[in-house]
């Protein structure tokens, strides 16, 4: 699964997610990715989120919408991302990851799997990583 979120200079947010599913899945099985609120969500009044991981778990907790909801309550993008994934783990024992941008440009990325390739760019700096705790930076 791949995904992206963005905030443009006009203050508009957007999110997108795309996937080929799970190896040897049942034909016709659909996970979270195309489900609005599960695989992705964007609202200028809170922010944008794209998710990845165990599709059925993500769908059950509406993970993307959960993150934006938490931002609506005042949580920062990073805290909202971590809190939503913790809730998913506690409620349905599912793992996954999210990338988030809040309406004011705050960035969140978190994962509860072994690895997640991620990258973000803001103010001409590219940040990226794969393992938990990594944050490499390149000036563009």
């Amino acid at each position, binding site marked *: *699964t791949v995904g992206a979120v963005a*905030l443009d200079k006009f203050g508009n947010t957007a*999110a997108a997610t795309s996937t080929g599913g799970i190896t040897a899945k049942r034909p016709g099985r659909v996970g979270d990715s195309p489900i609005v609120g599960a695989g992705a969500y964007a609202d200028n009044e809170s922010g944008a989120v794209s998710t990845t991981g165990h*599709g059925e778990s993500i769908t059950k907790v509406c993970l993307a919408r959960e993150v934006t909801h938490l931002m609506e309550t005042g949580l920062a993008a990073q805290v909202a991302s971590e809190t939503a994934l913790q809730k998913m783990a506690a409620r349905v024992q599912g793992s996954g990851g999210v990338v988030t*941008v809040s309406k004011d440009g705050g*960035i969140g*990325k978190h994962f509860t*799997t072994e690895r997640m390739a991620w990258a*973000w760019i*803001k103010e001409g700096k590219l940040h990226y990583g794969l393992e938990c705790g990594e944050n490499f930076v390149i000036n563009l």
Partner: protein
Amino acid sequence: FEPVVVIHGGAWAIPDKLSSASVDGVCSAARTGYDVLRRGGTAVDAVEASVRSMEDCPAFDAGTGSVLNTKGEVEMDSVIMDGRRLQCGSVACVQNIKNPVSLARAVMEKTDHTLLVGKGANEFAEEIGIQTVPTDSLVTDDAREEWLQFMKFKTTVNVLFRSRAEQTALPSTVCDTVGHD
């Protein structure tokens, strides 16, 4: 507002042989999306461009590089959402489409619907002139190999654990290895 783009390439037990390509792919996707934003493009333009770049990269399970279902077929899902007025579009179980995210955007912009699936989604693609590609062009050698390994694994599991109750009691580590999109 200061433009921002944030990318992921999937959360799972990424094997070492895919780690460099995955990191390079997300960095490239971030640059692609950021270039769009720097040129004055919208957030929707940026996320579509970023996701297209990863759909075209065989290291990722989306577009080219998609995994195979039990029948050995490719079925892809995608969604896009515009935060301005909560407009959204998505497709599920589409086949033979190089960039499903662009088809999802067409659903958002050219129809009154939010989700089209399967044959109907492919017919919509044809209707609006989105070119189809041969399935083989979307399938990598790695995806074929993984599919073969999984089918062998599944056969072994079926033999070893004859009842469904026994299968659902498999260790979570096994489920984690095979159960992520």
